[in-house]
């Protein structure tokens, strides 16, 4: 059966439309600075109190000539809008999927559009901090910024809770299974080669009937809690007291827990209650400590 489109001829064609674009003096200065100094420059309109990036000769608001009011901007900015490109076209700058974002550089009032790479697409959101990655090889174009990638603005070390942040009732814990090799390593660290920890035959003669871990081994498991979790990095422990309640056998899983029980306002220290339990929820040890919470580094 014939279709309505049978014998409908199509004329195929292709037109080449080459072009160039003169950047102008202002645009050229931006590109040259990007190419030679890896610096992103903008222009400022004093009258409108706006910094434009990309730069322009004229402020379109007040029509002032602003082409000489150059300001240098950093290479960091904030994503103010974005989309994820998933379909593929020959004219695209890189292979999809990739993120196209509007990025307002720190100190600028207008966003520039660019590619964001180096993060999961699903994690992209407005407000993401990004920094420019400059291309290794120049093309004297806006692609001399090859792309933007997430910028980690956090300090190198994140301090624990300060005295003011700590509240009575806050707690944290750390859990670990104590193995035979932990005990042997601990014997080496402490010099305590007592056969009750290392010699099963000798241990059979003791009240425990088998090898047990050194008491200080489970006790030491409170250190990652106090020093790295609560209060956390920067904490000093001036006093710690422990009473041992039950032995720790090889293979036991010990949970060390610390809880803030008192804020000592006068010294800006806290008192914490400490508990060690095993996998059967039996109390292995208990005690308390004084903790000096962190103050900002360098002060």
């Amino acid at each position: 059966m014939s279709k309505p489109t049978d014998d409908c001829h199509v004329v195929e064609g292709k037109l080449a439309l080459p072009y160039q674009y003169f950047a102008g003096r202002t645009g050229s200065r931006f590109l040259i600075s990007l190419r030679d100094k890896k610096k992103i420059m903008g222009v400022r309109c004093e009258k409108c109190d706006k910094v434009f990036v990309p730069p322009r000769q004229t402020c379109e608001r007040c029509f002032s000539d602003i082409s000489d009011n150059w300001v240098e901007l950093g290479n960091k900015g904030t994503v103010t809008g974005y989309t994820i490109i998933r379909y593929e076209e020959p004219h695209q700058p890189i292979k999809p999927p990739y993120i196209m974002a509007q990025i307002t550089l720190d100190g600028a009032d207008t966003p520039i559009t660019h590619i964001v790479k180096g993060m999961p697409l699903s994690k992209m959101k407005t407000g993401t901090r990004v920094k420019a990655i400059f291309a290794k090889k120049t093309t004297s174009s806006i692609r001399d910024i090859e792309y933007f990638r997430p910028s980690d603005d956090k300090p190198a070390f994140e301090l624990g809770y300060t005295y003011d942040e700590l509240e009575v009732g806050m707690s944290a814990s750390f859990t670990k299974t104590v193995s035979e090799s932990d005990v042997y390593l601990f014997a080496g660290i402490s010099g305590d080669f007592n056969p009750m920890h290392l010699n099963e035959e000798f241990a059979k003669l003791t009240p425990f009937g088998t090898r047990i871990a050194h008491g200080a081994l489970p006790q030491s498991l409170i250190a990652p809690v106090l020093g790295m979790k609560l209060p956390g990095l920067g904490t000093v422990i001036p006093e710690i007291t422990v009473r041992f309640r039950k032995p720790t056998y090889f293979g036991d899983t010990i949970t060390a827990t610390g809880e803030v029980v008192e804020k000592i306002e006068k010294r800006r220290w806290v008192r914490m209650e400490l508990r060690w339990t095993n996998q059967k929820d039996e109390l292995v040890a208990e005690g308390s400590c004084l903790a000096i919470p962190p103050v900002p580094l360098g002060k």
Partner: protein
Amino acid sequence: MGYKNKKRHVGIIGIGETKFSSHREDVNQPEMIHEAVRRALDDAGLQIDDIDCVVHGNMELFEMVHQADMWHTIGTGAYGKSAFRLTTGGTTGGTLVCGADNLVASGMYDVVMAIGFEKLQEGHTTGGITNMADPLWARKLQSGALTAQAAVKLIAEFGEERARRAAMTYRIIMDKHACKNPNAHRAFHLEWDQIDDLMKHSPPLIGDLRLIHMCSQSDGACAIIFASEKKAREISDTPVWIRDHITIHREETLNLHNNFYPIQTTHRFAAEKLYERNGIENPLEYFDVFEMYDPSAWWGVDWLRDFFLLEGDQHIQMVENHDIMIDGKMPINPSGGVIATNPIGATAMVRVAEAAKQIRGDAGEHQIPGKVEHGLASSFGGTMWTVLTMLEKETNW
């Protein structure tokens, strides 16, 4: 035709042209436009805030840009204003004037700025023009933007020697005018004694069309500010009034859709209608200046007959007798015309701008020496677009 009289008079109160040249490396598109905009505002003594509406145009595809009016706002000053984009090929500049005139005449806006521009250096003109043809019948046969059709016609009617000499005389007159216009792109300082040499030795392009006959490819922009009569009289001491304009167009690339020749050219048809409805019985006598969109010397000669409704060899005689020179009986293109300067999207608007400057009397070195009260400007575009614009010094018509 749906032509109706205007609701109110519209005056040209500001004119801005860039210097036209083959290269403008120092400015990008919005920056180049801005030069013309700034000059038009300065000429009118206005600030950008005084403009109610901006009309923007250039050729489609010539720089491989699309919707350039959007990002040209930086240079046009259209931020926060009403804005339109018009593009009708070579006639774009003329259509921009029509559009601005209609916008003001209708009462919609009191002050409208029209801007035409082109940066031909950045694009590929023939590539853009080739897109104009019917893709089924004509596109694959197109020779580009050039044609020698007027040469064929003139030679057939007046013989090789007379036709060729008239075309080259026209060419040299236009160059002599261009030498007086500081904004003109090409001014070669050609001399009369070069005619025979150029007729023989200028590189041939197509048929009898030689390189020297043909218009330039230029970069530049033109801006004109239009105002309602009340505003125009407040703002300007020398407003130039737009009396009327007419647009006639027809597809003629390879004569596909007008198979019932012979018929009038769109130029002649437009001229007849325009003069008829304005009561102009002898255009040659009436007009003091004619800025013609003359893309080549051959067309320039041939079209004189159409635009002035002449018969026989009257148009050839006008050229031979140098009547068309700046100090002649009917000065044509004292600016040097399109052969000297062709930033296409601005070109037709420059015709109106230059005719208006002649009427104001402040064209400078290329000011016509005698009185100039009535001006005519033409626009041409492919495949056959004609826009004619009538300008007046007074509103007494």
